[in-house]
């Protein structure tokens, strides 16, 4: 099917959805009072079902996240262990504005021995020059810089992994800043069990000066880290985030490194590892601070890429959906990933649109209002619990209003379009987010 045909088909589908919505409104206005009453009942039941699904989702995630948090806080303190050397891989493309700050944070790691391999992926700015100025020994680390023709993040990571030496590999983003204890805490989780192939760290938003970034800060805590924490309880984290992930080299080599055929190479590799039987766990103290998009267009770009990348990864492994056994945690993890990436956004957008239209047309606004109040309360509680678990500032909690009111729905619309584009296999590129170095 040609690209033009696919674009036309996707536009037709969008047009169909719009026409369908308008037709529904037209029909509803002119339907008999009996049908209108039935419609209101359908709305009422749908609201309850939607609320039930949401409660089930939040409750299960919060419960498992709490179990993971409690397990780690009530177990006996771990004995001091020998910390093996780590290779830290930093792929960089046009990160001249921030690469030196990243190098500075890496030089300050509280870890006995590690190397830093920066892979310049054919940058067209001064990334390479700035990175090269850091070559040599800095504290406990040797810094090396490689440069290559532009080939994408996955290829840059594979280049760095191949050129590195140590049995454990830490992959990060060039715009991330690690805390001094990040490597140490990640390694301790890794060493607890030989079947652990990767440790997912905790990504936090560093630039919180604007509403859009505050909302993302809350989203990372409540929407990303909480599910990751819950998945960590069953050792089946489905995404080791790009900014902070520690890998066992043996596991990486078995997987053949990162595949280059998706736009979410982190999700893709993690799924590969979990499907191969490796445990993937979560360490909330292995923290990386990252720069979140500060413009709405940049945010759309990022989430579009994430959604399509995740769907590409799931498509590669669609057989897993039909095999709940023998690896039930993997099946749950994959289901949850698909649910969050595609089912829930579409459900949320259409449910809210449906409820809003019926509320407008038939005066069922009170139902909608009380339902929305319950949702907001749910988000407030989830925000309070997750922010507390992460020992973050409680000043983020009130942003749960805007988070529920606007942010989630906005992103779900973008995810819906991304899913549509992926369904029709429309072309996409990496694009570069504008770095502002505000932190």
């Amino acid at each position, binding site marked *: 099917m040609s690209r033009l045909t696919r674009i036309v088909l996707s536009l037709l589908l969008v047009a169909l959805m719009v026409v369908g919505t308008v037709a529904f409104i037209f029909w509803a206005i002119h339907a008999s009072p009996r049908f209108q009453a039935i419609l209101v009942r359908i709305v009422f039941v749908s609201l309850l079902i939607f609320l039930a699904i949401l409660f089930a989702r939040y409750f299960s995630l919060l419960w498992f996240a709490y179990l993971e948090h409690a397990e780690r806080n009530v177990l006996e303190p771990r004995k001091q262990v020998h910390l093996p050397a780590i290779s830290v891989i930093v792929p960089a493309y046009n990160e001249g504005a921030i690469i030196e700050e990243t190098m500075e944070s890496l030089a300050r790691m509280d870890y006995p021995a590690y190397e830093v391999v920066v892979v310049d992926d054919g940058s067209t700015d001064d990334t390479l020059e700035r990175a090269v100025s850091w*070559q040599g020994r800095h504290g406990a680390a040797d810094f090396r810089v490689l440069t290559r023709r532009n080939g994408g993040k996955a290829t840059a990571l594979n280049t760095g992994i191949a050129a590195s030496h140590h049995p454990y590999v830490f992959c990060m983003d060039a715009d991330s800043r690690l805390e001094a204890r990040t490597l140490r805490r990640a390694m301790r989780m890794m060493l607890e069990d030989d079947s652990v192939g990767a440790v997912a760290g905790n990504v936090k938003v560093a630039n919180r000066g604007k509403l859009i970034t505050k909302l993302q800060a809350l989203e990372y805590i409540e929407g990303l880290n909480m599910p990751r924490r819950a998945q960590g309880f069953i050792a089946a984290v489905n995404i080791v985030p790009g900014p902070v992930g520690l890998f066992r080299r043996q596991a990486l080599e078995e997987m053949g490194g990162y595949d280059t055929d998706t736009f979410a190479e982190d999700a893709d590799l993690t799924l590969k590892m979990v499907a191969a039987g490796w445990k993937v766990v979560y360490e909330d103290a292995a923290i990386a601070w990252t720069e979140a998009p500060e413009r709405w267009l940049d945010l759309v770009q990022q989430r579009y890429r994430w959604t399509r990348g995740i769907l590409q990864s799931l498509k590669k492994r669609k057989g897993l959906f039909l095999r709940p056994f023998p690896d039930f945690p993997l099946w749950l993890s994959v289901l949850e990933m698909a649910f969050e990436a595609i089912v829930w956004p579409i459900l949320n957008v259409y449910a809210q649109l449906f409820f809003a239209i019926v509320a407008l047309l038939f005066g069922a606004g009170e139902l909608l209002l009380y339902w929305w109040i319950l949702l907001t309360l749910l988000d407030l509680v989830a925000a309070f619990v997750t922010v507390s678990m992460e020992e973050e500032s409680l000043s983020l909690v009130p942003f749960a209003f805007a988070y529920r009111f606007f942010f989630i729905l906005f992103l779900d619309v973008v995810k819906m379009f991304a899913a549509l584009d992926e369904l029709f296999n429309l072309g996409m590129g990496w694009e570069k987010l504008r770095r502002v170095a505000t932190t």
Partner: protein
Amino acid sequence: MNVIDLLITIVVVTILVTIVLAVITYVAYKLRLARQPAGDAAAGDELRYFVKYEPSLPDAPTKDHAPET
């Protein structure tokens, strides 16, 4: 209009406006993509790899630490 009606109006309007804004932003993103020149690797970039990099460090780098290509 009482408080309940006002809140209902706010919720409904916010839902509809959010969806519209998201659609507009998505369309703007697609337009931005369409406006970018195809093929960022201009001929000038290829020349980069034929120019030997000379780091401006006080000490001459050893072979082991030279940028590898």
